[in-house]
């Protein structure tokens, strides 16, 4: 997985400012459905103008979190605050929050125009203002010519844009997007990701997006909350989530990773040596403090791994692991080597910078994997 590519947001980082007031605050929120706990004592702050992604596998509670914001579910315990105001007891139709549904939920008996106008009409806006704002919304999503169509006469991508226009036309403080691109094909999805980002930036709105697609979250979000079984495993910028995952779950969920279990054998400040099945690995900069004898894991990304033939030399200072190539995955832009090392299968991804390689490493060859100490991660949880 490549580092996220996104338009620069300068030094936008309200979450690092102690004085900043969050727009959305989940304060110790728990949601139970019968005996099942969907969200468990969760605290999370989202700031104005953020493009915040809730990422996790299905059933992790991310949709429940969003439905509590929209008002379709009430927390079993804890508070949900919007701009400092407790949302408890406020029905969905009075919340200054709009949602784009995964199924789009377009009204099949209304034209595109009527669908978009619906929210404004409910607010009792004058007719000419409704007309002007609907026209503007249609322009924004590039659907000017389709105002009179019914939803069933539109393609999937067009429906998605109508749903977006309908949710945006009321200029909500907060827009919730529930798997907004899930029904689109890959190419359209990538285009739409950038359109959504540009739109959010231009309108200066706050977006919270629910997704199970890590690429989508990495591409679009200012920050990502990785969820697992009703809890937040980690909140951070895409780069932090990718480069410094806090737990084994986060490390495994975002991108590909090599993960080796072991025991701490040496500790020198933040420099930690771990005895593993593939030999001693020294982590240069451990985030958590550990004690000798503690069970931990060492992880590193495949693209931060060098792979050479067994006989070739490797610069000093790197952890070196010897193994045999089991399988090679050629992906065009890069090649992934699956290497067997004492019962483990590790991955090394190499960017294919040159058009052809004289003598490529083949399956079954003995190789050495080399990882720089600062590329190694120490995972305690």
């Amino acid at each position, binding site marked *: 997985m490549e580092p996220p590519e996104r338009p620069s947001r300068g030094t936008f980082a309200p979450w690092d400012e102690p004085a900043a007031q969050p727009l959305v605050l989940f304060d110790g929120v728990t949601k139970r459905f019968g005996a099942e706990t969907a969200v468990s004592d969760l605290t999370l702050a989202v700031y104005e103008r953020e493009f915040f992604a809730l990422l996790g596998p299905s059933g992790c509670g991310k949709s429940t979190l969003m439905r509590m914001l929209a008002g379709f579910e009430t927390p079993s315990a804890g508070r949900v605050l919007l701009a400092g105001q407790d949302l408890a007891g406020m029905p969905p*139709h009075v919340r200054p929050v709009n949602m784009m549904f995964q199924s789009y939920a377009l*009204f*099949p008996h209304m034209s595109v125009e009527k669908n978009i106008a619906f*929210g404004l009409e409910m607010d009792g806006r004058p007719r000419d203002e409704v007309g002007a704002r609907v026209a503007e919304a249609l322009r924004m999503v590039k659907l000017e010519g389709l105002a009179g169509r*019914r939803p*069933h006469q539109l393609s999937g991508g067009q429906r998605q844009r109508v749903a977006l226009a309908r949710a945006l036309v009321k200029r909500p403080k907060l827009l919730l997007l529930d798997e907004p691109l899930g029904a689109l094909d890959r190419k359209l999805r990538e285009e739409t990701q950038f359109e959504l980002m540009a739109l959010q930036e231009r309108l200066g709105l706050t977006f919270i997006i629910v997704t199970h697609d890590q690429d989508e979250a990495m591409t679009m979000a200012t920050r990502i909350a990785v969820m697992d079984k009703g809890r937040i495993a980690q909140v951070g910028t895409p780069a932090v989530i990718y480069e410094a995952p806090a737990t084994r779950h986060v490390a495994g969920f975002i991108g590909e990773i090599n993960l080796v279990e072991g025991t701490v054998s040496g500790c020198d400040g933040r420099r930690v040596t771990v005895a593993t099945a593939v030999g001693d690995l020294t982590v240069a900069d451990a985030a958590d403090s550990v004690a000798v004898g503690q069970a931990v894991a060492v992880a590193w990304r495949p693209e931060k791994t060098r792979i050479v033939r067994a006989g070739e030399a490797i610069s000093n200072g790197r952890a070196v692991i010897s193994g045999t190539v089991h399988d090679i995955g050629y992906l065009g832009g890069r090649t992934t080597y699956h290497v067997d090392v004492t019962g483990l299968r590790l991955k090394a991804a190499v960017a294919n910078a040159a058009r052809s390689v004289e003598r490529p490493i083949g399956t079954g060859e003995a190789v050495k994997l080399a990882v720089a100490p600062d590329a190694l991660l120490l995972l305690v949880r």
Partner: protein
Amino acid sequence: MSERATRRTIILVPYLWLVLFFLVPFAIVAKMSLSQVATAIPPYVPTFGLADGPAGWLAKARELSLDNYALIAGDRLYVDAFLSSLRIAAIGTAILLVIGYPMAHAMARAPERWRPILVMAVILPFWTSFLIRVYAWIGILKPEGLLNELLLGIGIIGTPLQIANSETAVLIGVVYSYLPFMVLPLYATLERMDRTLLEAANDLGCPPWKAFWRITVPLSLPGIVAGSFLCFIPITGEVVIPDLLGGSDTLMIGKTLWTEFFSNRDWPVASAVAVLLLFILVGPIMVYQRQQARQMEAGR
């Protein structure tokens, strides 16, 4: 057999069925309606026989006339019976819609495991004969019946209500008998409706009661149309309910037809009434068919 031939055969079967069991009987009735009543077996003239030959048929065809239709159009009794049938059917259908819609709505919103049981409960009355169920209403509605006994017992009324043998009784009978025909099509459309549409409406600032009128009702229109026609059309021609519950004051065309046919043995006039009833109902049936066809085209 080629695919086309197979398809033709498949389409041919219902067409043959319709020609044999609808068009032919209708032609017989239509011919009868142009005949004159006579003391004979069958009780009308002319009757066409194979022995007559083409010349005989032509001569007999000249005897056919529109006299019966003129008689019906000129007699207030028949016109009133038609109008009162349509009125009772309209009122009955309106009441059915008002009662049936909330029922169907509640059924569609009930927990999923309850729904088959609720549908079963709606269908359950069909397990008893229609005639017996209408008879049972006589026992309930008559002056010394269950309803009056109950109301007198509680003390709500001082003298028995005169419901039996009135239009009210007919309406009660009609609403009772046709309720499943209203509830089931409504339930079918309401149950199919995507509930996130209501959430989307709420989310856009629409309170739930308004969402009912703006989203639920328009989307259940096919069910409303289907249920209404399934009730209105047979109620207009209803015989048993007005006969048992309506007494002599309630005029309905089905009863008039029955009387003409069995009491007066005036088959030609009875046939003319039947033909007219059919033409009156063809209008709404065609509206219904068009709606259904549009529904199919729109797809989902």
